[in-house]
């Protein structure tokens, strides 16, 4: 199968890569671009571990063909911190230990950031519904919800 040249923007940087037509965005991020922050859990859009932003929308990168990102804007977990300074969500997740094994964490952080941009003051129920597509098998979710709310409160007062 021949490879196709794709030009896209990832975390604000112009990025060019070659890929096969049937490769997912997730596979390209991880295997061709070395951006292994996005995780593959299920590969079928059920677990949310591969969540990224595509043209301002939260998507599972396993359910996007890499060729579809020609001319698109992609944001991944790698672009979340500002240099050495963690995003409030990242820092609070660490401070409040809202993770155990950490495989779901990048996806949850990307998804939670998307929620807070849309709704800076969500209820716990809204957080739970929004994150229903991000599976975590360790924490039981409670600390995740609390950490999102702590970060949201901090971001509102900033």
């Amino acid at each position: 199968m021949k490879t196709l040249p794709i030009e896209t923007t990832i975390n604000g940087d112009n990025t060019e890569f070659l890929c096969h037509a049937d490769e997912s965005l997730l596979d390209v991020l991880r295997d061709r671009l070395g951006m292994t922050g996005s995780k593959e859990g299920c590969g079928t859009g059920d677990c949310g571990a591969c969540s990224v932003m595509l043209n301002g929308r939260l998507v599972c990168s396993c359910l996007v063909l890499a060729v579809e990102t020609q001319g698109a804007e992609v944001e991944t977990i790698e672009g979340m911190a500002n240099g050495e300074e963690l995003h409030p969500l990242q820092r609070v997740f660490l401070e409040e230990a809202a993770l155990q094994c950490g495989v779901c964490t990048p996806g949850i952080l990307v998804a939670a950031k998307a929620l807070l941009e849309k709704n800076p003051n969500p209820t716990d129920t809204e957080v739970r519904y929004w994150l229903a597509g991000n599976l975590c098998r360790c924490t039981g979710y409670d600390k995740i919800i609390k950490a999102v709310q702590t970060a949201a409160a901090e971001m509102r007062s900033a």
Partner: protein
Amino acid sequence: MRYVKPESFEAAATLLRDEDGISRILAGGTDVLVQLKAEMVEPDLMVDLKHLPGMREIVAEDGGFRIGAAVSGAEMGEHAALKAMWPGLVEGVELIGSSQVQSRATMAGNLCTGSPAGDSVPAMVTAGAVARVQGPDGMRDVPVVDIPTGPGKNSLAKGEFITSIFLPARPANASDAYLRFIPRTEMDIAVSSAAVSLALDSDGTVTEAHVAVGAVAPTVLLAKDAGAALIGSKLDDTAIAALVAAVEAACNPINDKRGTIEFRTTTAGVLAKRAAHIAYTRAGGQA
């Protein structure tokens, strides 16, 4: 696999017609990419249509709305006027999948994938929605109810695809509702479902009623007797009992791990009753 973004609908239809191998149409991709990953299908040709005119647009037309076939569930949920006109339809669309899936999944895909449990389909059927179908020989309009023909199957011919779905205008004092039963609170496939669309006269008597049920037959069903049972009533107990009986009579479900025949039949009746009451209240009727 070849990935092609055709220059026009006509070119896409010709390309699909002339492909000897397996072809798939890419809109939201939330079913197609899962099939690829599971190696259920290995397409030779993937045709991406999202960039073509109108595919990503919601446009007012003849008092109703034309929804491009690549408009996502999230975009429909954010459209206030659409939601106000067809709240039941939009709530059905918004029940599909997670936040991530909502960013990509489309109503046209939900229809063409042919699941009897598709959450957007019953309310499209009760809305009298019409799919605009492009094929190699031109364009035709097809009532949504005639698109699915069985699990995973639809009535579109080789080279045909949906470009938009039209939701007609609705009269004053009219509304709709959609409910499904799932054992969880979110992110699940309907065990049974029901949509009801009603129009009332000025004193609250039902003048028009459409009822459709999902996951209780090989396709979503328009239960004509169930709609007829409500006409001329104000949803009194007798009319509701007739609605429930008609819905149960229309059901022809399977037994599987998600629900028995009896459970699906009974819950479809209950959901239709509850959806009728919600639609009635939304339409301005005093229960």
